[in-house]
């Protein structure tokens, strides 16, 4: 049932709802929140209902359904009974959208935050494409423990869709790197 009063109620609570939604931890990387990762696009009121818009990191990200459930659960606990969670694909998420605070939290948890994302193939210049063998390029990924740049990638893919595996040549510790995308 939509009444003007209920609409006002949701609109008044938008700030609180944004804070709650932004603070939801990522299921795969629980040390960072949706706001830290930049996957919370917006929180708005529509016809007395709260609409939370999120974007996936990868097309097949299995965490998306968990995030939507977690959002509904936490917002319901705060009194927002009628919540719609929307997915937005465009513009596609980039690791550049991880906030400075999110990067600091990743580093503190032993994960190397992503370098600036390479220009995507969608932004490439026309004509024959030179082969960008990014895996063959030097990485310049700093070890999250000791800061050394003497690191090597041991595997292009890691335990979640958004990480790769690295090892530090100085402190010898293995670590995960959040892939630049």
């Amino acid at each position, binding site marked *: 049932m939509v009444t003007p009063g209920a609409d006002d109620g949701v609109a008044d609570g938008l700030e609180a709802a944004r804070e709650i939604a932004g603070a*939801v*931890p*990522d*299921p795969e990387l*629980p*040390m960072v929140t949706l706001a830290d990762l930049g996957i919370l696009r917006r929180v708005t009121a529509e016809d007395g209902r709260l609409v939370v*818009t999120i974007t*996936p990191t*990868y*097309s*097949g*990200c*299995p*965490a*998306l*359904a*968990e995030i*939507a*459930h*977690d959002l509904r*659960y*936490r917002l319901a606990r705060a009194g927002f009974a009628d919540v*719609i*969670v*929307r*997915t*937005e*694909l*465009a*513009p*596609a*998420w980039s690791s550049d959208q991880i906030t400075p605070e999110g990067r600091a939290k990743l580093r503190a948890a032993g994960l190397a935050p992503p370098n600036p994302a390479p220009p*995507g*193939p*969608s932004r*490439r210049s026309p004509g*024959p*494409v*030179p*082969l*960008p*063998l*990014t*895996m*063959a390029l030097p990485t310049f990924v700093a070890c999250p423990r000791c800061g050394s740049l003497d690191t090597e990638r*041991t*595997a*292009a*893919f*890691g*335990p979640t*869709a958004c990480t790769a*595996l690295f090892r530090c040549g100085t402190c010898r510790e293995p670590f995960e790197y959040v*892939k630049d*995308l």
Partner: protein
Amino acid sequence: MTDDDDFAAYQFLAEETEDHRWAFGTGFSDPLEGIDTSVPAGVDAAALATYCLALGDDALIYSHRLQQWVTRLPELEEETALANIALDLLGQARLLLSRAGQAEGAGRDEDRLAFFRTEGEFRNVRLVEPADADFAELAGRLLIFSAWRLALFGELTGSADPVVAAIAGKGVKELAYHRDYAAQWVIRLGDGTALSHDRMQAALAAIWPLSDELFRADAVVARLPGVAADPAGLRAEVDGVLDAVLAAATLDRPGGAPLAPVAGLAGREGVHTEALGYVLAELQSVARAYPDATW
């Protein structure tokens, strides 16, 4: 348990809710939920449905073939890599099949399309059907597939259908990473020992006849100006990438006749190799045995 707990993300699973899922990652909802899925004016909805079905089927069948490699790969790192690549493709398949179902407007969702169509109703190219005979075939097929799909998705980022454009925009980033991974292995095997070189060359020779179909004219594409990408227009980019990788890998570009269509029909028209039936038998058996099951 407090909200600060690392496991707070899972806390809601233990609460009494309407949610009857049995594990993390289950209970899939419509992947296009909340996205404006109206078909733009002037776009042939039936053709759009068939086109999305074809691109979704390419990813679905190939993802299943890659999943079959898991537990059979030489190293744990490659298991993780192939599982991740298969997951990306499955994600693309879910989005495209959902888009196909909406454009069709007959109430079929992604599961209905994936599990309850017969062989002749699948629209994937034949390249993705056969099982890889060895790791060299895996690397070679993945290189050809991802180089082609990346070129295709690069074009589709400008599609007049905003949903296709958005799916392509996400996909290009994933496919660029897949192509790099495959290229690294083709170079490593081709420019490796005499044995690995010969096996990589033999693998390419085995796969090559299926590559011509990727650039074949498609009647559905002709009905979707501005929405779909002309397959023939992708050949220059794909050839450029493959030639660069083959040169670095000291491999020869295979010759040999393409696998011909059957009476003018190939994968996009629902005519497939024998291998597809075996893939579908495995992919669909549980859903067909328990049609009301949820997971």
